[in-house]
């Protein structure tokens, strides 16, 4: 037995094995260490995150976004803060045809019963189509939404989306305008101030208009009644504060419901007060007289003119509805609204001065206001000669908007300063427009008595509202038709100011193609239709505007009454 004891000598392969094992162990330790570090790192990150959340984070029940409640689009309010346009959440009913699980035929019948605008066959076709989504109804009433919900069909989607609502419906529709289905301003102030209304920083504050809802409603109603009585095809009206240029009411009839603007006719969408231009006739005569006074041609209302039965100028003749057939004073010319007399005054003023005055009053350009619907005025243009000067003098051959006329009357009676009209309330945030002088203060003062006399003794008698000292002028203009002027289609208007002893508000009412009635004895002139509507409107709106009726106050009538020669 000479074999060596194995215990004493390590076999070389075994030694190699030990070395290998050590190496493997070292690698394993390294890997374990690495793995542990990774886990520790992850845990550390989670722990740190938890600590951070505990210290600074939000809690689980947080409802974000609701604390700062602002509408999608700013409200529009009137000068007293009454809402004219608001954005509310409306229900929308949608249809996902692919998600329908019930019997499609039954569902189509039920839908046709609930929403009768389409028949069952159409609904069935929609339910079977491949399209992923249909709008069934936008802005649907709550009871319909409840009924649709009761159907319990997962394919019918009920959602809320912001929708523009006009609580006063047709009130001041042409001023406010309307939005399209996606909430973008399409007309009126909605269009003019679209950016401002959608601006996220200003959405919380409403846009304050100069419109007074009550005045607007009173005027709309009285004008609408006049339009109905005289079967006119349209009407327009403007009330302005003559000192600031704020438009307190502006309407255009027929009315439009901005809640369903798409259903309105183009006629209803048309804004006659700022977009429509009309030859407004004799309401221009006070401007001609004022121009002559400012130019030193007329120093007293007693200045006499020769007023024959017809005036022939440059191949055409001018006629009067009440011919004098002799001498007449300026006061008489205004009282009887004589075209012949005014034409002679305009002729003395001359085209250059007339043009300059009209330009200063803004009558040769689009009317100045925030709205984008503004009509281009029609003037004789380059062809402004003697006869054009004469016709423009009594309001023919020049077409302007009713708002132009209101601005002009405001200029004439606020002391002679032109100020652009504005639809935004004049207050700390919005200063009145920059004005410039057109007429002298003295002219402005003297004109008060002249226009008051027209209402007291002249063509505007029916515009009188006792105690409110209305002064104004009627205007009846034949409409231009192909080949001349129509005798039966007229535009009548009444432009006036009240209270005349201390003028504050100017108003223009216009009727488009009024028809004669039995009460007007067959007349269709402004004195019979626009003037009474004016008087009624003033009687309603003046107390709202703080004008107190007083029968004992009148402007200084000594300027004009001695020169009125009434035929007895």
């Amino acid at each position, binding site marked *: 037995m000479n074999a060596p004891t194995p215990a004493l000598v390590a076999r070389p392969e075994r030694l190699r094995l030990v070395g290998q094992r050590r190496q493997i162990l070292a690698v394993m330790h390294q890997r374990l260490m690495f793995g542990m570090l990774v886990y520790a790192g992850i845990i550390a990150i989670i722990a740190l995150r938890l600590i951070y959340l505990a210290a600074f984070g*939000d809690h689980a029940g947080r409802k974000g976004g609701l604390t700062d409640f602002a509408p999608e689009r700013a409200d529009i309010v009137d000068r007293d803060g009454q809402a004219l346009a608001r954005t509310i959440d409306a229900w929308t009913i949608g249809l996902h045809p692919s998600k329908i699980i019930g019997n499609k035929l039954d569902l189509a019948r039920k839908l046709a019963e609930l929403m009768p605008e389409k028949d069952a066959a159409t609904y069935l076709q929609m339910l079977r189509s491949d399209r992923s989504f249909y709008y069934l109804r936008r802005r649907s009433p709550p009871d319909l939404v409840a009924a649709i919900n009761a159907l319990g069909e997962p394919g019918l989607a009920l959602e809320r989306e912001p929708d523009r609502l006009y*609580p006063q419906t047709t009130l001041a529709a042409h001023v406010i305008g309307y939005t399209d289905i996606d909430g973008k301003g399409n007309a009126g102030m909605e269009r003019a101030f679209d950016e401002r209304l959608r601006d996220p920083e200003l959405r919380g504050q409403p846009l304050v208009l100069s419109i007074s809802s009550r005045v607007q409603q009173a005027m709309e109603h009285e004008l609408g009644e006049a339009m109905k009585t005289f079967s006119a095809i349209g009407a327009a009206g403007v009330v302005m504060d003559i000192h600031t240029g704020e438009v307190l009411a502006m309407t255009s009839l027929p009315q439009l419901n901005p809640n369903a603007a798409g259903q309105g006719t183009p006629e209803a969408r048309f804004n006659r007060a700022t977009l429509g231009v009309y030859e407004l006739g004799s309401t221009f005569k006070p401007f001609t007289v004022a121009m002559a006074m400012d130019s030193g041609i007329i120093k007293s209302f007693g200045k006499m003119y020769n007023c024959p039965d017809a005036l022939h100028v440059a191949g055409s003749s001018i006629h009067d509805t009440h011919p004098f057939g002799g001498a007449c004073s300026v006061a008489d010319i205004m009282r009887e609204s004589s075209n012949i007399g005014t034409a002679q005054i305009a002729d003395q003023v001359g085209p250059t001065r007339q043009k300059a005055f009209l330009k200063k009053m803004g009558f040769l350009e689009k009317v100045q206001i925030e709205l984008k619907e503004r009509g281009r005025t029609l003037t004789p243009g380059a062809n402004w000669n003697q006869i054009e000067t004469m016709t423009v003098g009594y309001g023919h051959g020049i077409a302007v908007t009713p708002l132009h006329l209101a601005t002009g009357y405001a200029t004439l009676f606020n002391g002679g300063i032109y100020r652009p009209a504005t639809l935004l309330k004049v207050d700390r945030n919005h200063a009145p427009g920059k004005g410039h002088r057109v007429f002298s203060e003295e002219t402005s003062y003297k004109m008060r008595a002249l226009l008051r006399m027209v209402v007291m003794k002249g063509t505007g008698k029916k515009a009188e509202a006792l105690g409110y000292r209305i002064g104004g002028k009627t205007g009846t203009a034949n409409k231009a038709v192909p080949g001349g002027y129509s005798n039966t289609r007229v535009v009548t208007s009444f432009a006036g100011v009240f209270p005349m002893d201390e003028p504050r508000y100017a108003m223009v009412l216009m009727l488009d193609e009024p028809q004669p009635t039995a009460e007007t004895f067959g007349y269709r002139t402004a004195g019979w239709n626009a003037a009474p509507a004016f008087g009624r409107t003033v009687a309603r709106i003046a107390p709202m505007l703080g004008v107190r009726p007083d029968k004992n106050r009148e402007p200084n009538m000594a300027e004009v009454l001695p020169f009125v020669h009434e035929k007895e």
Partner: protein
Amino acid sequence: MSARGFGSVLWAGAVAGAALGFYLVSLRVASERAALEDVETDIAMTQRDIRLLQTEIGTRGRLAQLERWNVRFIRLSAPSADQFVDGGFQLATLARPTPKPAIEAPVILASVPVEADAGQPRLTGDADEAGPAIRTSRPVSEMVHVASYSVPQRPELTAPPAPKPVMKPAVTGAKLARTQAATKPVKTATADPLAPLSSANLKAKGSAPKGTSPKTKDSAAD
């Protein structure tokens, strides 16, 4: 030695306690903030609801609707110039105070002058001379018509008691009314508030409180 051995444990405990304390403070703050946010959310939701309701009220009570009601039913119109007054003083002049009835006013009977020659038409100018002589009124007794109800005598009727119970209350009622009418003016005419009180009046006045006072005491004791 042992204290030093526990030192690290104590430190760890203290740090853990402090961390827990901080965490609790932070948790408290977070929960307070959450409550505040809930309130803010409530406010926002309420504001939205108010807005919605205001819009609805505004839409239902829109001016055009009020105007329609006015035209059809209420029919109010604009005030005229005469309906405005300058101030409180002018307003007060429009209202007449209600006249107080004078207690001791002499009783004047309404009388109709009957002219003697009523049959002859006379000129109005003649009345000046003849007026005072003719305008003699008839005596009061002539003008007063006494309304009465007399029961028709029916001797042939065998059972008279049947209508009697019906008639009796009517008669007594009329009697009562007559006595009241007779006594009332006398009372008001004689009752002079400034005159010295008679002994009978004093007695009556003094006895009334005596009678009521024990009653009130009883009720107070209860």
